[in-house]
Each structure stands twice: as C-alpha cells, then as structure tokens.
C-alpha cells in the first residue's frame, strides 16, 4: 500500500493522536501544560487553515500587487516582533521595521533581477517569508546586543566622545561587537547545513518527490539569501540604531531605566 507524499485530512486527523499522547504524558507528569498543548495545537490548526485560505486567494487572484502587499504585512509584523526585545532603545519599532524592510527588498530584488526566482505569488511569497524571518532574527539579536552594549559601555562611549570623537567613531567598537554576535547564528547555520539539520526548503522538495540533487539547489539559494538577509538586516539595524541613540550634538541619549530599577551611571 502506497502512502501519498502529502497526507490527506484523515491523515492529519490521525496525527492528532500524537497531540493526545503528548497531552496525556504532560497531564500524568502534572506539568500543568496539557491544556496549553491542546489549545496551542488547535490554534496552530486554525492559523494555518486561515493562512492557507488567504494564500490560495492571493495565488489565484492577487498577482504581483497581492504578493507585495502580503510581503509588506510580513515586514510590519516582523519589525514589531524584533523591536520587542529592545523596548528601551529609542525608536526601536521604526528601526527594526526599516532594517527588515531594507534587507528584504535588497535580497528579494537581487534574486528576482538575477532570475533566480520569478515573481509568481507561489514563489515570491514563500521565499520572501524566509527572508523576512531571517532578517527579523538578525534584527532582534542586533537590537538586544546593542541595548546591552549601550547600558554596560556608556562610560567608554562617553569617554570617546569626550576626547572629541564623533558618534560613529565612538560607537563603532560596540556596534562591531553587537553585529558579530547577531550574525554568528546565520554563519553557523550556513556552515552546518545538511550535516546537522535537513533544512525546510530541501525537506519540502524531497517530500514532494524531487530528487535530492535537485532539491539542494533550492537549499543552496536559500542559505545564501538568508546569509545576505541577516547581514543586511544587522548592519542596517546598527546604522539606524546609531542615529536613534545619538543626537545631532553627538550625545548619547539617556535610556529609560530598566524595569528592575537599576539606574544608569551618573
């Protein structure tokens, strides 16, 4: 008996047995998570059905304008999510949204211009989704690290300013530290791809019956574009954050005190 590559709805329903098993285990171990797991599973089902319905409509009728609108919504959501990590940074939502947008536009436009992908919605939207997601992670990491750097390194930044250095020069060593940390995950993921994990795009193609030697072509493109997107997003974040952190007189803004009541050094 052959099983189809993509399960039917009865198959999906049967896979809910795994959720039941997980909930049962969690319930017996008194983790207090069983209800959460059931709600989360139901929610995932609902969200995916809704997204699939909208995607189907965009694929069928949206064309390029529909795709671009969808990508814009993803960028806006990604910007808000990435900015959450660094609420204390001035204008964090604007910085994060702009950085994700720039990384997405440059990366996707390059792929389209070089005819690596075409602009049909069922190609453009999933590829852009991966780019936005990669850019969001790099942006969130960069913002978090920049925030920590500014909080801990304020005396060093102000010492450089006091010696007549401009904001860019005074901030550069700290921006470098933040950028390195933020970009390492993307570099590491590129190094171990295929060795430790079989990434999503390749897995999807193999499941759909595509030869592995062909499936990796997509994956190679995906890894390269994610590396570029992460780098672009991180660099754009650091650059935009600098303009938000310093004023025209090359002064480092006071950050609002963190909620645990630690005060910045006077």
């Amino acid at each position, binding site marked *: 008996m052959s099983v189809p590559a993509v399960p039917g709805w009865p198959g999906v329903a049967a896979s809910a047995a795994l959720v039941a098993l997980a909930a049962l285990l969690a319930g017996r171990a008194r983790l207090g998570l069983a209800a959460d797991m059931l709600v989360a599973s139901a929610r995932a089902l609902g969200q995916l059905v809704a997204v699939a319905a909208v995607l189907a409509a965009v694929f069928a009728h949206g064309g390029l304008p529909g795709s671009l609108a969808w990508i814009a919504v993803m960028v806006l959501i990604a910007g808000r999510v990435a900015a959450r990590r660094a609420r204390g940074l001035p204008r964090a939502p604007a910085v994060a949204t702009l950085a994700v947008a720039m990384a997405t536009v440059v990366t996707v436009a390059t792929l389209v211009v070089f005819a690596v992908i075409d602009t049909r919605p069922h190609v453009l939207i999933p590829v852009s989704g991966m780019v936005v997601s990669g850019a969001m992670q790099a942006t969130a990491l960069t913002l978090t690290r920049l925030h920590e750097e500014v909080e801990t390194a304020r*005396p*060093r930044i*102000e*010492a*450089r*300013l*006091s*010696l*007549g*250095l*401009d904001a860019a020069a005074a901030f550069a060593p700290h921006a470098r530290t933040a950028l390195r940390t933020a970009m390492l995950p993307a570099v590491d993921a590129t190094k171990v791809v295929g060795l430790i994990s079989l990434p999503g795009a390749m897995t999807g193609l193999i499941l759909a019956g595509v030869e592995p030697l062909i499936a990796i072509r997509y994956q190679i493109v995906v890894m390269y574009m994610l590396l570029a997107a992460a780098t672009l997003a991180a660099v754009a974040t650091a650059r935009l954050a600098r303009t938000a952190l310093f004023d025209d*007189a*090359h*002064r*480092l803004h*006071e950050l*609002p*005190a963190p909620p645990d009541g630690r*005060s910045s050094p*006077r």
Partner: protein
Amino acid sequence: MSQAGFVLEGVGLRRGGAPVLTDISAHLPRGCCTLVTGPSGAGKSSLLRLLNRLAEPDTGRILLDGRPLSGHDPLLLRRRVALVAQHTALLTDSVAGELAVGRPALDAVCAADLLERVGLGACFLSRSTEGLSGGQVQRLGLARALATGPEVLLLDEPTSALDDTATGLVDDLLAAFVTDGGTAVLVSHRTAHARRLAGHALVLEAGRLTEAGDPARLRYLAAP
C-alpha cells in the same frame, strides 16, 4: 558685555523626571581654577557633563566666552574642553593606544612628555593597560585628555585614587596648567588641597547653588 569663561544662566537639568540641577546661575572665570564642591549626589558631575555638551540643560543656557555652548561645534568643543571622568574607562589595551584615542597622530616624544607630566614616566609608553593600578589608570586618563591640547580641563575627583605624593604632582600640574592660561573646573571633596588650587569656588547642595566666591571665605569650606 560678555564674560570670559563659562557663564551659566538659570541652568536646570532633569533625569528620568527628577531634577538633578535647579536654576544654577554662575560664572566660572577663564584662566582660573574653579572648585565645585558639595555633598555626594549634589549634581557636581552632572554640571561637568553640561560644560562639554555630554548633556544638554533642560532649562537655561550656558555660554563659553560669551557664545552659547549650543552654537559651538560639539566635536571641536570637546577637544577644547576636556572632561576627565572620575573613573577612567580604558579604551585600548596599551598605554600608547590610550594616548592616541583623541589624537591619533601623537608622536612618541609628546606621548612620553604627557606621561612624565602626570608622573607616570616615559617607561609606561610601551606598557599594556592590563595590570595598571587604579591610581595609574586615573593619571593615564588625565594624560589622555591633555593629549588633545585642551584650553579647559574639567576634572571629576581627579585624585580620588591617588596617594599624597601623586596628588601633589597632579596639583602641581593643574597649577601650571592654569598659570599657562588654562582654565580648570575641579570637582572635589578634598577641599583642603582644592582650596590651595582654586581661585573660585561653587558649592552645590541638592542640585542648587548655595554658595559661590572666594574659596577662603565660603561657609561650606570652613566647616570642620
């Protein structure tokens, strides 16, 4: 009529909604060492930060030689008006590197001379900043600020980590700096030695200016 030096007109500064400095009006004359003293938390360090535009007053204004500070280019101003923080934040891993932060073209002769002036000696020029004592770091911070050739030195407790010998040396350096036409603003608790150096003094208490004038006549400095 413009007055040489710093003039503060009704200067107020708030941080996180709380007042740090309130309605300060004062004159810090050019070519003179002005002592700024008062209890901890009185806003003395914040006052220094206003003078080289690391912070901006929320109310009032500050003039330097008759011109509002906001009209001075901040990068040029900070080279003219050097701030030496109480705790020197090291920026590189070598003594020579520290001296070059504000003046990358500094040659070895000038660097050695700066180290001699703060009592560290030219032999420190080849040293790493690792393993320097608190007092040595503090003097390196002073030398680093002098490297940019400032006209004004803003010093925040510059001898807090120094023994008496080193303190005397820094006092002599400051006295010579002022004699040569430099202006100094010295935040200090050590009022005895500060009184020797200062030609003018301001007393801050809870963010307000409570006394100003000749250090020998101030009530705060006379108190035991």
